């Protein structure tokens, strides 16, 4: 299996073999972060630019740490304090970063398809760190990596995704990745927060949280993104917690070794109780740790894919 893509834009377009290569590469990178000197020279002399049009702490810091552990130089651009405020377009910003001889742009944008558009206009690598409601591939990869690490396999696993499926790029990337790798996915949410025809992505749908938990091997609890509610589709916070919140009581009826994941940031007492978030089933902080290895693997692979393409066009 050889990686030939210069970009990572989503999991939809990846083959099962490509997904497995990323997971296997991430597994090798995990060891680097346990060393006293947490650094390898694989991307020495490369420049990674984090270009974030939406607020983010965890993803940006995780990409920054991943790049630095590969010895790359990292520049962070937060658009609130950049020329974007003066009206510069995404593509102009991208071509300028390319002209500065950066090698990889990690982009987060509130429009679906923004990363793909940037990638089409640039020769350097683009990694999607979340585009609108579309995809957040590295988050899904680290969720899947953590699942595989905890349960030893993915094929045949039953994974439930609870929360605002309609507005969630994390849900979409997870569904693509998990179904390609043979897991069975159920989505669970109030009717207004489930997109029409989501069954076509190969998932089952339920509105009953207890049913969704009953035979699940793992639950991915999504944050309720109240900031995205423009149409009054969201239930009240307390109502949501009562009907869909993951609590110790609900877990007592689930499988004994069920795994609880959450992409963060947590809203304690809305989608998950503190007891569960900090409890024995939770792997939430391990997800954060694994995010570094997964992003190191992605940065390493796209930089290799780019080199190959560069060679053939010269």
């Amino acid at each position: 299996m050889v990686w030939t893509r210069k970009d990572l834009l989503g999991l939809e377009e990846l083959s099962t073999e490509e997904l497995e290569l990323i997971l296997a590469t991430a597994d090798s990178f995990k060891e680097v972060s346990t060393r006293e000197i947490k650094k390898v020279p694989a991307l020495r002399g490369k420049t990674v630019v984090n270009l974030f049009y939406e607020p983010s702490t965890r993803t940006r810091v995780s990409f920054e740490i991943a790049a630095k552990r590969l010895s790359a130089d990292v520049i962070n651009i937060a658009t609130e304090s950049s020329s974007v405020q003066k009206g510069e377009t995404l593509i102009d910003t991208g071509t300028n970063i390319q002209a500065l001889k950066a090698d990889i742009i990690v982009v987060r944008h509130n429009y679906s398809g923004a990363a793909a558009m940037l990638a089409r206009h640039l020769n350097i690598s683009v990694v999607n760190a979340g585009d609108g409601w579309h995809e957040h591939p590295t988050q899904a990869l680290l969720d899947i990596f953590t699942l595989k690490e905890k349960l030893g396999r993915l094929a045949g696993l039953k994974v439930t995704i609870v929360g605002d499926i309609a507005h969630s790029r994390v849900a979409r990337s997870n569904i693509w990745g998990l179904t390609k790798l043979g897991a069975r996915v159920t989505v669970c949410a109030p009717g207004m927060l489930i997109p029409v025809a989501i069954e076509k992505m190969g998932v089952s749908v339920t509105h009953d949280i207890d049913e969704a938990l009953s035979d699940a091997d793992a639950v991915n609890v999504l944050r309720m993104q109240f900031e995205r509610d423009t149409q009054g589709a969201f239930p009240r916070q307390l109502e949501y917690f009562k009907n869909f919140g993951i609590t110790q009581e609900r877990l007592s009826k689930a499988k004994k070794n069920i795994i609880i994941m959450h992409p963060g940031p947590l809203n304690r007492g809305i989608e998950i109780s503190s007891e569960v978030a900090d409890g024995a089933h939770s792997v939430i902080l391990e997800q954060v740790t694994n995010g570094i290895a997964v992003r190191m693997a992605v940065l390493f692979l796209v930089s290799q894919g780019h080199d190959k393409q560069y060679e053939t066009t010269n």
Partner: protein
Amino acid sequence: MKEKAKILDKDALNRSLLRIAHEIVEKNRGTEQLCLVGIRNRGAYLARRIAECISKIDNANIPVGILDITLYRDDLTLIAAQPVVHKTEIDFDITDKNIVLVDDVLYTGRTIRASLDALIDLGRPKSIQLAVLVDRGHRELPIRADYVGKNIPTSQQETVEVRLFEVDGLDEVVIVDKA
């Protein structure tokens, strides 16, 4: 790809490893603070075999680690086939140890240069020595081996293939013509 000559057969290969094991124990005056680190892929199997020989000679269990140097190569962007990154598995502290690096073939010396960088990122060993099954010459860096199974003069049009039972199903070393 044409096989030109068989340099070592199974018995000769194992005798070489046994001799190297004796030399390691002799030079280090025993096995105290001694560790072996094999370079992926075949060096890892050779390191394990040498450690077995040493355990018979000196009745001591030597820690054996595996080093993956993919991320330390200086030709990452040049090689045609994309390398797969594997794990480095060294579960002991290398600081103040006498480390014997083990690889199958010593050629340009660039793999060893990368291995030294990789090792030193993991700690500060007391010394690093080098054992190779085959030294085929054509060095591009000032590097030499402390223990050599067999010196084989080669041309750069040839490659030396080390085949090991663990990977290839048989033990032998052959010279192959690239053309």
